[in-house]
């Protein structure tokens, strides 16, 4: 399969990339890892007039933690970099759990977290993770930079609020105010398949009490679901069998799955609830296990 014809540009600076996107007037597409875009070009689901390949932009492949604990992921940081990161393994359990579950090992060598967010596939793992973590992206356009919360980034399937001449520079996870806990679980028929269901949970605890919670759901709606009520049920006290059961129930209610070849809507809701329980009972100071 061959993509349709396009003009190819490989700028050497962010400013040049933005100028090209501006020039493209909505008919240009950013190419980062290309693990979703190239197949879409080949299937001709996408046929942009211009492709702006950002792989030659210097200094965007970083994964770093600021002194205050803020995590920053550059636009060219690959899934494999996140999977291998000892830093995430030590400090950010939700991201560390998700990184090895994205696509397959070869795709992870090339695909990027920021690209995955901008692709806005309802089946994308990172959007759920970043929503659970309360993360945002930094987008740069001709008029400068702005922050966009990942929860506000997706307008619908494969649609974001990014302007046509804005480039997502990095994704940011705010510094935790307590001890970070959580995880990511995904049900897939085989490695590399789209998620049947994915659940991302990120909580912060202080003195045994949950002070922040976020739950993101993958693959059970027209876009990534921010299960606000389910997360809210965890706040203000320790994790107990009761709060966990309540959050599991509310998360299942927040899901809007459709019956398809991957399973019935009822089954998918059940998995959402099971995964919420599993993740929360495995948080180190969870009291849910006793129940």
């Amino acid at each position, binding site marked *: *399969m*061959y*993509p*349709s*014809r*396009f*003009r*190819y540009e*490989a700028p050497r600076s962010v400013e040049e990339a933005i100028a090209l996107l501006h020039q493209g007037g909505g008919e240009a597409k950013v*190419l980062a890892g*290309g*693990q979703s875009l*190239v*197949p879409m*070009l*080949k*299937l001709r689901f996408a046929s942009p007039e211009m*492709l702006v*390949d950002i*792989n030659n932009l210097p200094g965007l492949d970083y994964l770093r933690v600021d002194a205050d604990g803020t995590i920053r992921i550059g636009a060219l940081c690959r899934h*494999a970099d996140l999977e291998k990161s000892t830093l995430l393994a030590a400090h950010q359990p939700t991201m560390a759990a998700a990184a090895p579950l994205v*696509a*397959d*090992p*070869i*795709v992870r*060598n*090339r695909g990027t977290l920021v690209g995955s967010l901008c692709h806005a596939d309802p089946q994308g793992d990172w959007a759920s993770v970043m929503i659970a973590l309360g993360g945002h992206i930094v987008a740069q356009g001709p008029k400068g930079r702005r922050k966009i919360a990942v929860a506000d980034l997706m307008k619908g399937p494969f649609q974001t609020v990014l302007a046509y001449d804005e480039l997502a520079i990095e994704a940011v996870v705010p510094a935790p105010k307590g001890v970070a806990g959580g995880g990511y679980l995904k049900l897939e028929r085989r*490695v*590399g398949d789209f998620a049947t269901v994915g659940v991302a949970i990120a909580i912060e605890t202080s003195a045994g009490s949950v002070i922040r919670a976020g739950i993101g759901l993958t693959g059970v709606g027209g876009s990534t679901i921010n299960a606000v009520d389910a997360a809210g049920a965890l706040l203000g006290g320790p994790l107990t069998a009761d709060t966990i059961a309540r959050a599991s129930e509310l998360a299942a209610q927040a899901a809007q799955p459709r019956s398809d070849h991957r399973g019935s809507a009822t089954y998918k809701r059940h998995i959402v609830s099971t995964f919420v329980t599993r993740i929360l009972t495995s948080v180190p100071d969870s009291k849910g296990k006793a129940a």
Partner: protein
Amino acid sequence: MSSLFAEVPPEPASDVPVRRVTINVNGEARTAVIEPRLLLAHLLRQGFGLTGTHTGCDTTNCGVCTVLFDGTPIKSCTMLAVQADGHNILTVEGLAGASELHPVQEAFKDEHGLQCGFCTPGMMLTAKAFLETNPDPTEDEVRWALSGNLCRCTGYQNIVKSVLAAAEKLRGQAGN
């Protein structure tokens, strides 16, 4: 010219954008003029005649088109050839030395790590890169590392055995 005439391709239409790329393929600089929409897998196969790189699903699932891009496994059906400009590509043709097989190839031969052979180039290249980062893997780690490469014949048992045997061979070499 070896005969009195040679058929040449028609001149491309002048409005078709083309790019000149130089890619180091298996240690040799290869230059081509290509349309940017050409995929790396197709440049390797049809352009350079390196048909050891197979194309299977053509949808980024099966991994048979895996090549090493600056030492890292990538699916060559999911990279534009123009993106490889200035980079190093290793295909299965570049694995063996002048007179002997690469230890990974030896191991696949010894352990019957293939039946039809279609997935084998991708399997071996993935295995080579994996064993460089993890020279003494467990069986589980091998299975995990190969999970992006599909095989429809073997049920994977002998492929996993082959990679474990290759690891042993390579450790032996490193020890010498």
